């Protein structure tokens, strides 16, 4: 880790410590602390869980159980680009499953996962409200509509370079 990221990390942990101090002696501190940690770090890595485990005296296994139980928590950081594939009725009817499968194949990740290079996170989403353009995907704030699986390679390529 470079000096800069180490320092950033330290800042994040001291932020987390403030939240822990605030909840430590209250009933049920785990959920609020995890929520704060998720916001601060963007994910709940083993290091973060170990830290919370030590501070709250709760075994890592119990924390991990909670983290994997609720979908609001993630174990790995989200990618630089978040790809949302609309699974609303209109998109679904127009073949969004095939689009999702194609992206999945292209990036070698399943829905909910992040690619090895940390660039993309793939999610199947609810209706994005652009049914006229179905099937659509969103990559961060960009919308792509009227897609067929053949278009995917080209689109992904734009973000890779």
């Amino acid at each position, binding site marked *: 880790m470079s000096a800069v990221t180490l320092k950033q990390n330290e800042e994040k942990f001291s932020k987390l410590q403030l939240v822990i101090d605030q909840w430590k002696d209250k009933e049920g501190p785990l959920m609020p602390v995890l929520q704060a940690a998720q916001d601060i770090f963007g994910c709940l890595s083993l290091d973060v869980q*170990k830290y919370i485990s030590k501070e709250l005296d709760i*075994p*890592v296994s*119990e924390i*991990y*159980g909670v983290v*994997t*139980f609720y979908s609001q928590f993630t174990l790995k950081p989200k990618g630089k680009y978040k790809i949302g594939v609309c699974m609303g009725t209109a998109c679904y009817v127009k073949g969004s499953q095939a689009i999702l499968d194609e992206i999945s194949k292209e990036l070698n990740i399943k829905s909910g996962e992040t690619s090895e290079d940390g660039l993309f996170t793939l999610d199947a989403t609810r209706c994005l409200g652009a049914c006229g353009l179905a099937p659509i995907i969103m990559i961060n704030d960009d919308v792509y509509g009227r897609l067929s699986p053949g278009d995917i390679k080209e689109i992904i390529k734009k973000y890779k370079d």
Partner: protein
Amino acid sequence: MEMIKVRIDGVEVEVPAGTTALEAAKLANIDIPTLCYLKDINEIGACRMCLVEVEGARSLQASCVFPVGDGMNIKTNTPKVRAARKISLELILSNHDRKCLTCVRSQNCELQDLSQKLGVDDIRFEGERYDKPIDSFSPSIERDPNKCILCRRCIAVCNNVQGIGVIGATERGFETMVEPVFNMSINDVPCINCGQCIVACPVGALREKDDTEKVWDALNNPDLHVVVQTAPAVRVALGEEFGMEMGTRVTGKMVSALRRLGFDRVFDTDFAADLTIMEEGTELLNRINNGGTLPMITSCSPGWIKYSEHYYPEFLDNLSTCKSPHEMMGAVVKSYYAEKNGWDPANVYVVSIMPCTAKKFEAQRPELSVNGHPDVDVVLTTRECAKMIKEAGIDFLALPDGDFDPALGDSTGAGVIFGATGGVMEAALRTVYEVVTGEPMENIEVHAVRGIDGVKEAEIELGDMTIRAAIAHGTANAKALLEQIKSGEKEYHFIEIMGCPGGCVTGGGQPIVKAKTYMEKDPKVVRAKAIYDEDRDLPIRKSHENPSIKKLYEEYLGEPNSSKAHDLLHTHYVERSVY
């Protein structure tokens, strides 16, 4: 205590307030099926096998967590109850990997029992099955997620009884699993290999790493001298694997069985326990007299050792440097004994029969070796030993009593009591007292250090010196004790810690006791009684009076803690990370 009256299936019983319907039914001789329930350890009402009908209540109640009230009328055998239980069971079975024929727990499985008892003759639902890899990376613990029924008994033991918590429930719904975090192997998390999760598991999802094949191979190799040794706790439990009453002593039959299996020598780890006392007692007195690190803590329990390496590295200097007894035995066999018999140590193969799964890991530690040969080649649990005896077609119950082989098979009552919590302490006191005072100890049974309280304390007068001693068993108790020492609240000279609750008699490699049996008796107490009976019946009960120990020092080691003794019988520890 307030007593209340309840009717269960028409039978009236009087019970203390707060008694659960399950316990009350037991008093009325009514057996309610259970699966997730483990007395005092896991009482969470998760599996719904123990449902009963309570008059006036709207829904069926899980009797293991339902406290009865005065005047209640409970029915355990109505059509509604039977149907509900059966559905719960069939749902569990629907996605269970039902390969009983090849399962270690067949005939000793609570799920299989229930299926029989409840008359499940067909599984109407065929659930989605997962096919997850078996985790067999640990030298001690093997985990088969496909057999797990999510009862959480292992989680409760690891978390609450041992204070460790390296397995937990993850994900949700169909994806729910009981496993270590981040898909890690149990070998890569700070597990101490105590095996308490194995003896808590009702099915074959957790088991020891099976090493019996290695031993069969060694026995079949004509070039090897295959030596076996048995820990004290094995002889008071092995009989259970052959249907004998808990607490039956089978020392003689065990020795005969091992000889029939073809071992060249059958030695007693109790001999090495006596040797441990000589070394550890001397070490203690040296530390006290020369300002060494105190309190000194015993090092016989590899579960405890790994626990301290992970969780209390600041106490590593407090640990006695003595190897555990079976490792000492291995070292003596591959040096002294091999030399005396003209054996090449490279061709000597030492097998330890232990009540313990942590010793499988311990035996692989590179530092536990003598001239490049591992002290101990293979560790088998009491259960694996029984398995070999059965495979060989030996009729255990019909065996005559045999005797251990001379020299390294000679032992004392002090060696035997190592098997119960407090035993190492008591054995040490029997010797240290006489070394310090030069007088025979009048009452050698030190009752203050016996029994199953989690932490025990005693003060012992040795001439003009008073030794403050403490004993803890089960790592959660050890943790509590160590915290008191850290905070300065308590001060001791000598501490005995055993990783497993009850000590070795209830180690993770011992015969598995069913949840229902725990409702009637506590194996910690019953097996310990057998240990103390064995001690009482032995002619010599003090380690320093063992003639073969004296001879070993005269002929080979010189004095306790001599440099030769240090080379062979002492070790060191390493700090390990937590995850």
